[in-house]
Every structure is written in C-alpha cells, then in structure tokens.
C-alpha cells in the first residue's frame, strides 16, 4: 500500500515543475524587457548627441544670436528646418516618442581660471545640457561650448550678382506642377569681371498653397547641361506664405564660376516637377518682373525646362521676364 505515488507527491512535483517553468518564463520576459530598455536608451542617447551636435553647429553660426541671446537655466527647443538648426523658446513636436530640451547655463571660473561652482562668469563659455525624455525616463548629455570662433578667421559671403526688381507675385511657371510634368523654371545670370565661388543663391519666393513639394536649386551652364552645383533641399513649409521672402539655397561646397560667363539657376522640386505622376505638388510663386526689354541685362527667365521627362527640353524662353535672385560669392 505504501508503494507508488500519492496525490500529495504529484502535487509537490507539479508545484516544483510549475515553479521552475514560471521562473524560466520570468527570466525570458526580463531579458526581453532589458533588451527593449537598452534599445530605447540607445535611441535616446543618439538623440541627445544629435542635440549637442546641433548646439555646436548653432555656436559655429553665431555665438551672439544662438547661444548668448538665450535665457540661462530655462528649457529651449531645437528643430531642423530646411537644412539648418533653429533654437527657440517654443515647444517643438516630439521626435518619435521622445521629447528633447536644451538648457544653457553660465560658467563660473575661480582665481586660477578653472571652472568652479563660484567665481566670475566667463562670457565666452557656456554649459549646455541636452535632455531627452520619455515618460519617466531621462537621458542627459552635458557639454561645454566655447566661443573659439571669434579667434578664427571666418569665411563669409556677399552678394555678387542679383536682380532685386522682381515684384509680380503670380503663377508664371506652374512649379512644382501637380503631377503634370510641367518642368522647372530657371533664371540666367552673368558673372562679374572676375571668377566667383558661389556659396548660396537666394530666390524671391512665396508659397501659394499649403504644402507644395520641397525644392532645391542647381547651377548649370545651360538649362539642361550637367549641374555644376546642387543646393541643400529647402522644406516648403519654411517658404513664406503670406508675403514673399528671400529663401536661401546653400551649396555645401562653393561652386566656382568663370568670369563674365552666363550661368543658369534652375529651381527643382522633389519629387521632380519634370515627370508626370511623380507625386510633385504645387504651387510656388517665384517673383518676377516683365518689361518689354528684359530689365536685368545679364540674363533671362525660362520655364517648362525638362518637361514630360525630356531632359534635353530647354523649355520656353521668357525674354521679357526676370525672376528675383541673388548669387553670393565667398569672400
């Protein structure tokens, strides 16, 4: 009678086996939680690095406007607009599921000129903390920025060629075309007596609809020859909507142009306005002026370049028209 298993033994064995399995499953679930936690940590750390890099870029652009001008100790927000960082006091939409804040703090130096908790404020150094948060979790990166750029000769640019007289705000070029493949507009210009290195072009634009395609500019020898330089892309939302404004198109490396030669600034869109059903959406107004004899003597306007995917199509010459443009030369 005492041989074999009783109910109590089975229950004990069951309890041990269940306990072991429960433990294993908890280990599995915990491992998964740790991995997801680590993934979020990586995402947050990289976003914080992104923020520190943004602050360095803002410092390089202007210490006075981007670093010195902002209140110390309060939250600031950074965003990327048309290939440039912006810093401001108004909250920006979160990046994915993470919010990001930047705090600029003063730096004090002691009698030995070392950073310390008390002493004299150093006007050329700031402590920058970038904080990335999600729910209750926070990742912070702290760095010190110095205004060393004031001691470094800085490259600058100035207007070399321009046409400032454009005032007509109308849809001349049907650009970007609404999936119609209507091509691109362009304006030619003539370089001055010596060769120039173009850092950027500025075009007088107005956004006529809420969300046209993003745009970029190219410099070409003819409307359809190979591009000599391609600018950064400008997000359409950053183009003024209520009134026209000068929109900068930066070239990552200055484009060298020969003296007294004609070149074209061709405005392009992404998706391409030259292709039917590419997804391109209008409309932008590139402000122009029409006079019987083209007012800007160095060049003329064109429209419909490369229409219907024909990359050799030079479009239509508008010999009475000039678009507003500025070409900047590296000093």
């Amino acid at each position, binding site marked *: *009678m005492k041989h074999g298993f009783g109910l109590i033994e089975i229950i004990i064995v069951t309890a041990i086996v269940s306990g072991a*399995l429960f433990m*294993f*499953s908890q280990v599995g679930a915990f491992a*998964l939680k740790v991995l997801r936690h680590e*993934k979020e940590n990586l995402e947050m750390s990289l976003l914080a690095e992104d923020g520190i890099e943004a602050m360095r870029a803002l410092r390089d652009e202007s210490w006075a406007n981007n670093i010195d001008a902002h209140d110390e100790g309060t939250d600031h927000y950074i965003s990327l607009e048309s290939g*440039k960082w912006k810093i401001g006091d108004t909250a920006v939409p979160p990046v994915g599921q993470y919010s990001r804040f930047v705090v600029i703090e003063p730096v004090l130096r002691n009698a030995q000129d070392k950073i310390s908790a008390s002493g004299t404020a150093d006007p050329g150094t700031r402590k920058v903390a970038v904080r990335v948060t999600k729910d209750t979790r926070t990742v912070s990166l702290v760095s010190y920025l110095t205004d060393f750029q004031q001691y470094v000769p800085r490259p*600058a640019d100035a207007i070399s060629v321009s046409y400032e007289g454009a005032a007509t705000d109308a849809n001349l070029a049907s650009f970007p075309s609404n999936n119609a493949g209507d091509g691109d507009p362009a304006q030619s210009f003539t370089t001055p007596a010596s060769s120039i290195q173009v850092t950027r072009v500025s075009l007088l634009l107005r956004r006529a609809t809420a969300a046209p395609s993003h745009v970029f500019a190219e410099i070409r020898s003819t409307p359809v020859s190979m591009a000599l330089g391609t600018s*950064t892309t400008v997000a359409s939302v950053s183009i003024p909507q209520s009134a026209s404004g000068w929109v900068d198109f930066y070239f*990552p490396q200055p484009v060298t142009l020969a003296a007294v030669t004609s070149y074209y600034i061709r405005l392009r869109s992404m998706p391409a306005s030259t292709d039917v059903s590419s997804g391109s959406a209008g409309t932008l107004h590139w402000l122009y002026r029409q006079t019987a004899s083209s007012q800007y003597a160095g060049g003329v306007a064109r429209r419909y370049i490369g229409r219907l995917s024909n990359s050799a199509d030079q479009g239509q010459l508008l010999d009475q028209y000039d678009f507003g443009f500025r070409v900047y030369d590296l000093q």
Partner: protein
Amino acid sequence: MICNSKKLRTGFSLIEAVVYVALLGVISIFIANSVIFLVQAYARARAEREVLANARSLTDHLATKIASSQETYGFASQFDMDAGQLSLVSAVAPTAGHTTGYADFWMDNGVAYMREEGDAATPLSAATVRVTAFRFERIIQTVGREAVRMTIRIDAASPKFPASATLITTTALRGNY
C-alpha cells in the same frame, strides 16, 4: 472481512484514476504552454538583439565615415528620402594617384551597402534584419560647416516576431573642420 477489506484497498479506484488523468492533463497543458512561451520569448529576444546590434553597428560605422570625410558628394547622394543614398569624399583612404577617395552608402531590398572607390559593394546589415529607412539630411549651418543627419530604421526580418529600432543622429564632417 479483514482479508476482504485489504483486497479492497489495493489498486486504483475509478475516482482516483479520473483525478490522476485530469491532473496529468492540466500539467501537460501547463508545461506545453510554458515551453511555447519560452521558445517565443527566446525568438523575440533574439529578434530584438539582432535589431539592436545591427542598428548600433550601422550607425557607428556611418558616423565614423561621415566624421572623417571632407564633403558630401551631392551628385551621387539622394537626400531627404527614406530609401536614400549618401556619397562621401574623404582624404582618409584616397585611391592611387588621387588625394581623395569616394565612399557610397545605399540600401537595396532591405539591406544597407557600402562601396569604397575601387572595392566591391559590402553589405552592412545582416540577413536577419531589414533596413526600412535609410534617410540622410544635409545640414549647412553656415559657410564651411556641413553635417549629415541620418535616420535609420531597422526591423526584424521575420514578421512573426516584430522588433524595430529607429536611430536618429547627426555627425559633422570633421574633415573640413
């Protein structure tokens, strides 16, 4: 009578058999479920690990290459699109007879590739994951200050155990600093 009662107490009664079978059933179901859960947790953890490792190595690799380059090569790069392409000009590994070399990064069918001038294309991501976003934005804050912001999204290749990571970071081109 004593003999009879002893005889009665040996073996299983029907009720005992029913209880044992029921217990066995319950235990079997519990064990099977637990084993399935364990296997699934392992597969999920493996998918997460693969995604994390690939995302990290891809971002590190790109950041190193971008930081050491002089400029982005605009004509061969496709910026601001999810299936983007990045072409870099660097003085770090120039080709023979030149002062600079080119390196291209792109994605094709869920795999990220790199090709340095003169070399064959090398995959940068494993077959266990899919690169679903490979986006580059060019940042020019001021004259001579270029940076590239990358957004890389990696998903597990198997849709059965979804795992995903989106890494966003910016690297300045230090080659021209």
